[in-house]
């Protein structure tokens, strides 16, 4: 039973208030994109054992989407942050680096 803090309304709440939405920071490919790009975008989600950036919605609360950096093995939550960004904020990256030495953004496969 996870606890997450919604960065939009500031509420810290039970997992049951939220809804997981899969990998974050995925670039959308629309009409005109290559087969590989489109397939990669829609289906080839990263599935790391360890640090994962993912989307959540506070659907039984303020209704806002946000992002979480979470470990899929220990379930530690390194932080949550706005969904309106293309990359995790530096402070969260720093925090992860401190806790998971050797880790680097987008090279966790």
């Amino acid at each position, binding site marked *: *039973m*996870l606890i997450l803090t919604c960065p939009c309304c500031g509420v810290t709440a039970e997992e049951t208030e939220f809804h997981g939405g899969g990998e974050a920071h995925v670039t959308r490919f629309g009409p005109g994109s290559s087969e590989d790009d489109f397939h990669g975008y829609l289906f080839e*989600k990263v599935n790391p054992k360890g640090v994962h950036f993912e989307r959540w919605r506070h659907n039984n609360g303020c209704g806002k989407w946000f992002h979480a950096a979470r470990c899929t*093995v*220990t379930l530690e939550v390194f932080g949550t942050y706005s969904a309106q960004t293309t990359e995790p904020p530096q402070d969260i990256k720093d925090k992860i680096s401190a806790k998971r030495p050797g880790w680097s953004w987008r090279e966790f496969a």
Partner: protein
Amino acid sequence: MKRYSAFAVAREALRNHMGWERAWASPEPKKKYDVIIIGAGGHGLATAYYLGKNFGITNVAVLEKGWLGGGNTGRNTTIIRSNYLQDPSAAMYEKSRSLYETLSQDLNYNIMYSPRGVIMLAQTEHEVRGYKRTAHANALQGVTTEFISPQRVKEIVPIINLDGPRYPVLGGLWQARAGTARHDAVAWGFARACSAMGMDIIQKCEVTGISREGGRVTGVSTNRGDIACDKLGIVVAGHSGHLADMAGFRLPIESVSLQALVSEPIKPCMDCVVMANTVHGYMSQSDKGEMVIGGGTDGYNNYTQRGAFHHIEETVRALVETFPMISRLKMLRQWGGIVDVTGDRSPILSKTPVEGVFINCGWGTGGFKATPGSGWGFAELMAKGHSPLCNEFGLNRFKEGRFIDESVAAGVAH
């Protein structure tokens, strides 16, 4: 290998059971095999077994990082059925179900296949239409099912409450030849048979790398040294993405936790498996007398083999409503497994971008029932390069937009 029989048990009893051989050998890995299978779960072992049995390929190693059968094979709710809607699924699961029927004799190992029947309850008009459609499809697929009335449901499962105030039972899809089997025994029986064919099952052997040369697989690195091979099958539910990474390709897969629980054992009171999809729960009674209950998956990537309580709560609540008599039973144990979920929730049995590497994964919540069928088809794919059973389950289907979607109930009525 000594044959198992009542006579053998009696004979050994007189020798204080000192004469039993190991069920499977525990060899050191050789330098090279024709085929390496990563993952000694049910599917991996079944693949090895049918490689030997159907194609005479016995220079095979099955590598297992923990203990054989220790993943989802030993964590599921043991339901076997083939009442699937789409042709490729029905073909796969029906092949599997029919192999289960004679698997005990085939392996000389009692896997306790129990064709006690499976009912899938229809609790909305939408489900009624969906299951009637499935019954029509099954008739043409050679899968024997029928849509039955609520009264018939009650006859088969007297403990059911047909008139729940929220979702009355409107009927059910009944597959009489579906059932359950003893999950551990399936892995053990296959392992014993593989070992008897001279294959090496190597436990506590974790693959740490996959070597390639010119786009072709050459072997694997493990904590017990490098092992060469011509062909490599990856059959590691829950960890498929991780292994695919080692081989340099990505899979359309996410790993989530699926939970199950059992009650304390009680005397037999339910002679079939009941699945109630509207309220998200299913239940059967094991040969030990426990009510075996399965529920939903977490909605996020999770490798912990445990899950959140609210899924258990939702499932138990639904089943107490459906079967009021379980109210005063007690939950004995709950656990979780890691399941691979694909983009269309159907499995992948496929060649991969790496020549010689084959992948069998993505069974989601339904892999146990497919064990022998999956092994049969995947062995054929690995041996011959193609298999009618696996044909539609290729990796390319996602690129082509050719999905095998079983969730007909996903569309919402009105």
